[in-house]
């Protein structure tokens, strides 16, 4: 069906097609990404499980997991939300449904190719930037640029007076992440070497997170929570504080990822201070959303999209409290490079960000398919597998990280740390496998929604209808 629409006239493509293809692609990549995560975790707990072949070696699969989740699941879910939220907020149609479909097509092709090459070990050897530069150029010009053009043009052709905060984020973040990708590629394109390369690697890693993954996730919540609850956003002005503070403060602390490397000391100190200042947008966001919930807290229990969304917002609280302070010199020396950081990274991507996107994908797919969710039971099953699995993962990795930190300062031989961490490695695998299982349930539920969900009448929202299963 995608193939048919790729060469159809723009007007003949039903509105919402791009959203639907983006939505299902993102869930598919979430299943793949978490499945790989679960497999990798099993290898850390039981190193002799599936061994002897290059194809299933941990070192070949770890980066595939990371990028399948970041560029497959999270970024495609962003693409999906942009395809339906941007026009809805501008009271208009998507600028080009056809361009949207081409974007999702190129995205899937490029990502599959890139991950396949990574799996074979064809890598640039730079963390988070592992894709080789030709693939990165596909990401920039085949994926981000068309996505950006669609969003910018839709905003420009809006039929509303103002621009809602979500669209501010969408428009700005696509632009910034393109710049980040381009600058991040410069060591490979221009053969920049040494500390410049090391710094730019983490400059890229930090900014992809700070100018793309977390702010766009927050922007999504600015749409879903008012839409679902019917309450207006508590304060658009606080939303703007969030937006501008992200641009100023989140774009600068890259070097706090390299606190123990021989970087200039002024840069590290500057990054630490700026890193604490990230709490300003973070607190603004959480407060704004939670205050929007006023009078509608029953929906946190009764409505599955609200449940996902608010869980994501609540997870932003520990995320920001950790993130703001763990990068200061006083704390970083203890936790740097340990499982604590792994737990924190999963709190950001699997906790805060993924829950917000899951809510938006649930909501948007029902909206664009014009069908009510197939089964509330399965959705709740997804939610509880997701949150319990995540918590097991997060808590066990935090403990493992603290053990590692202690081992580091008390000069314990490293192998004793490995032995002490073993139970937590098993727990991490159990948690990750639960998340994976939940996602398989989700994919099934969404597939059945598309086929058998009750049709939503014209002029109604899916979440206003009663669940049937």
């Amino acid at each position, binding site marked *: 069906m995608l193939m048919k629409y790729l060469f159809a006239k723009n007007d003949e493509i039903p509105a919402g097609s791009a959203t639907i293809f983006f939505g299902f692609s993102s869930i598919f990549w979430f299943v793949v990404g978490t499945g790989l995560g679960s497999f990798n975790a099993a290898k850390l707990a039981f190193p002799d499980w599936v061994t002897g072949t290059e194809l299933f070696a941990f070192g070949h699969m770890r980066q595939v997991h990371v990028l399948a989740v970041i560029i497959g699941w999270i970024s495609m879910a962003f693409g999906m939300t942009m395809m339906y939220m941007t026009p809805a907020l501008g009271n208009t149609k998507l600028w080009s449904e056809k361009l949207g479909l081409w974007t999702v097509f190129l995205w899937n092709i490029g990502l599959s190719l890139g991950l396949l090459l990574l799996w074979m070990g064809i890598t640039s050897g730079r963390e988070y930037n592992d894709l080789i530069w030709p693939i990165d150029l596909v990401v920039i010009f085949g994926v981000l640029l068309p996505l950006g053009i669609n969003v910018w043009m839709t905003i420009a052709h809006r039929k509303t007076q103002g621009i809602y905060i979500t669209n501010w984020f969408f428009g700005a973040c696509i632009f910034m992440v393109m710049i980040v990708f381009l600058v991040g590629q410069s060591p490979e394109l221009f053969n920049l070497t040494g500390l410049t390369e090391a710094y730019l*690697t983490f400059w890229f890693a930090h900014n992809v997170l700070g100018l793309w993954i977390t702010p766009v996730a927050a922007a999504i919540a600015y749409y879903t929570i008012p839409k679902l609850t019917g309450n207006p956003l508590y304060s658009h002005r606080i939303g703007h504080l969030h937006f501008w503070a992200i641009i100023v403060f989140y774009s600068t602390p890259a070097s706090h990822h390299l606190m*123990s490397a021989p970087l200039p000391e002024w840069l590290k100190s500057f990054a630490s201070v700026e890193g604490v200042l990230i709490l300003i947008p973070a607190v603004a966001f959480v407060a704004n959303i939670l205050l929007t919930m006023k009078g509608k807290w029953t929906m946190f229990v009764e409505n599955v999209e609200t449940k996902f969304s608010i869980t994501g917002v609540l997870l932003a609280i520990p995320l920001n409290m950790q993130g703001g302070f763990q990068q200061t010199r006083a704390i970083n020396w203890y936790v740097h490079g340990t499982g604590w950081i792994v737990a924190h990274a999963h709190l950001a991507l699997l906790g805060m960000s993924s829950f917000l996107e899951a809510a938006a994908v649930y909501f948007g797919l029902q909206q664009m398919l014009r069908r009510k969710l197939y089964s509330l039971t399965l959705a709740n099953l997804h939610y509880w597998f997701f949150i319990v699995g995540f918590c097991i993962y997060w808590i066990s990795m935090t403990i493992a990280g603290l053990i590692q930190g202690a081992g580091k300062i008390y000069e314990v031989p490293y192998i004793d740390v490995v032995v002490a961490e073993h139970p937590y490695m098993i727990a991490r695998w159990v948690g990750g496998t639960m998340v994976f299982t939940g996602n398989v349930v989700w994919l099934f539920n969404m597939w059945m929604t598309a086929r058998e969900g009750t049709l939503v009448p014209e002029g109604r929202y899916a979440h206003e209808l009663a669940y049937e299963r």
Partner: protein
Amino acid sequence: MAFRRHKFGSAGIGLMFGFSMCITLFGPSNDFRSGVSTWVGLDKQLSLGRVIGFSYEDPTVSGDGKPITVILNKDPKTGVAIDPPIRAYVYKPGVKFSPGVNHPELLGPGVEDLSMRDGKISSASMSSGAVFTVSKGVFNDEEVDYIENASATRGWTPDKTLRTAGDANSRYVGKGKTIYISEGCWWCHTLLPEQTQDWQMFGQPPFLGDFNGEMPTAFGSDRKAPDILHVAARNSSREWMTMHFFNPRLVQPNSIMPRFDYLWGKQDANGNSIDFAKWRADYSDYLHGKRIYAPEVPEPARDSEVRALIDWILTSLK
């Protein structure tokens, strides 16, 4: 639809984001430029070549087109004994030079001047290959290490140098580091002892000038295994490394490192094909108490990937 709002907004975003970029990109780039290469930095870039990881010369990231590090105990041209032995870095014709040779300004003040004046690196040509060494000199009353183009200063040719050293004294360092990258070793091991508390266990943290010309640096961020920047200083046994790579639990029962037996390839050092299935069956018997000793680990072939990997570890990580 001429709203001014998005124009103000776009300008504001450009201004603020641009300001951030100035601080985080232009600011540090000045500091990085002032780093003077140390011996470690020069040794690293000369033994690794232009780039590790995906590149034109090595698109499959398997270690093609990399220089070879040799240990010389006599002069390849005159045959005069060299004591103590020195390292030379052999670039066969067509192998791309390390960044510092093509762009001496990367080496830092002093090192750049001596490498150009005494080291004659600008006369090295890729089409005929070259042999480099690291020499000591004095610049502005300070002792610095610099790159010497031994092909120009001493008449060493790549072929003669490789023949003089022989396979026993050749170290496939560039290929080895490539394997380290493509096999993802750096997802667990780090190459960066931390400045605060890693001294006792993992040794001295690196200096500013230790990285000039290295690409990628691959510090690693998620330490699930020991830091290995100085691992060869703690353990320099090739036998131990060989067993540990084949199956880490042969020498460290609690290790969670994967087995890297597939880096042996199909044949061992004597040209016999390696029967992995039999080895695993024997090892299983050993684990279950049916054998007293674990099966012997095959001796890696000369051109195997694991040989290059161990070469890199034992030569560079000291």
